[in-house]
């Protein structure tokens, strides 16, 4: 069985600036892995390449064994994603937005109706189902972003700062949802919040200036560096 996510030697330049430097990672099925690193480390770039929004300068990325660059649509059908700070069409409602995305992902009829109800209930947005998104706060949009990522019940979740913009209650709720999701799914998410990473994941990939500095169990890193925080600081020394 192919790996859930496989990254092989990903390198990406932005006008001469090296954002990803030969990054390689292997994430097994139902593993929960955090991509941790300081601002500008290359986390979002890696996730964008994985989701086919960007091409690497060199290297390969596979989702469920499918080459993202060669068969983007087939590869991406296994994924639910939140990237950067997503925005929604302000003049559509959550119901219309989820219906649109669900239809693009091949869902329809009662299955889609039921799933929309389920994810909106899970993300506590059921009262806002027919309100135009232009009236939503940042936190509500983030909840809707997670709802759309989980809509088609994908085996792989790729999430960039999933709790960004949420209030403390929202952060706890999202963490609980992700903890539940990781029992059946691969959760691969980028963050720079050590506490969040520790609570959601068992394994962490620490990157800095585009390079992989460590890829190990959090427990093992804690043991080696005496604390997770010290491990992070040591491995990202010199970062801004």
């Amino acid at each position, binding site marked *: 069985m192919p790996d859930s996510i496989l990254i092989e030697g990903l390198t990406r330049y*932005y006008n001469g600036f090296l954002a990803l430097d030969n990054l390689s990672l292997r994430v097994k099925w139902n593993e929960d892995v955090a991509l941790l690193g300081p601002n500008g480390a290359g986390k979002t770039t890696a996730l*964008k390449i994985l*989701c*086919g*929004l*960007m*091409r690497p300068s060199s290297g390969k990325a596979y989702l469920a064994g499918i080459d993202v660059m060669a068969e983007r*649509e*087939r590869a*991406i*059908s296994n*994924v639910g*994603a*939140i*990237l*950067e*700070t*997503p*925005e*929604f*069409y302000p*003049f*559509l409602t959550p119901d*219309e*937005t989820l219906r*649109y*995305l669900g*239809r*693009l*992902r*091949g869902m329809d009829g009662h299955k889609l109706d039921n799933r929309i109800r389920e994810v909106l209930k899970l993300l506590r947005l059921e009262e806002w189902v027919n309100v135009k998104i232009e009236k939503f706060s940042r936190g509500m949009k983030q909840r809707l*972003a997670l709802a*759309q990522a989980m809509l088609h019940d994908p085996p792989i979740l790729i999430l960039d700062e999933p709790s960004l913009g949420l209030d403390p209650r929202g952060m706890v709720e999202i963490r609980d949802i992700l903890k539940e999701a990781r029992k059946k799914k691969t959760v691969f998410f980028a963050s720079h919040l050590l506490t969040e990473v520790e609570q959601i994941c068992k394994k962490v990939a620490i990157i800095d200036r585009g390079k992989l500095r460590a890829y190990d169990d959090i427990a093992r890193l804690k043991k080696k560096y005496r604390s997770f925080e010290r491990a992070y600081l040591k491995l990202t020394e010199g970062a801004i």
Partner: protein
Amino acid sequence: MSEFEKLKVVTKYEFLKQFRRKRFYGALAITVLAVVLTIGLYKGLDLPGRMGIRDSPEFFAMLVTSMSSMAILGAVFFAGDAIASEFERKTGYILFPNPVKRITLVVGKYIACVVATAIIIIIAYLISAGALLGFYQQVPGGILGSMAIALMLACSVISMAFVFSSVFKGGMGATIATLLTYMVIFSVISGVLSFAGYDPWFLPNRAGDAVTATYGITFEQAFGGMSAGAHMGGPMFSSPDPTLSFFVLLGYTVVFLPISIWLAKRKEMI
């Protein structure tokens, strides 16, 4: 799910987005106002009498339906940010990570823009036809040809706007670039060629003038009493050929749309 099914979904929701925006109703209101004002001024000022021309449904239709090209402005505003806004407003982060080809998204957006513009154009022509029936109890057959050219003009302008929308980072830049290209650059080239005695039949603005050339009245007949100046005249005051103009506009559509698809496919969410 086939890509054609996905195209239908994209078109449906892009169309819904167009309908939810104020700019659709703004473009509709401006076009209707322009047509109604032209009708009112034509009759109120007795335009044919002042120009020394015999009033006829063809001459009336020629002037009134020329206002339908106002809808082209609407087309530019619908299309200018169709692709660019996905990047500028970051909605692409929700739309693009889906199992749907970029070509499907662009074509779906294109169809939605064309349909939204077509609705405005058709309403403008229906008002013109209603006025013709009311004043003259007849509608010249040329109105259908005029509408066909207006619709093709909209298709070509939207294609051009899509090219700019695929290149520019912002929707406003793409909209302004399209308007400048169409209304300034092409007009200047067209004017220069006309002064030199060449008919710029291959330019979209000249071809678009054919919306008034389907009624069997030439520009020379309609505006024969007006002076063209020392070096003007010739192509500037001749009617463009409607059939040729239709195919010129079709050509622009067929060339620009694939270019915009190719550019949109290459554009990255950085």
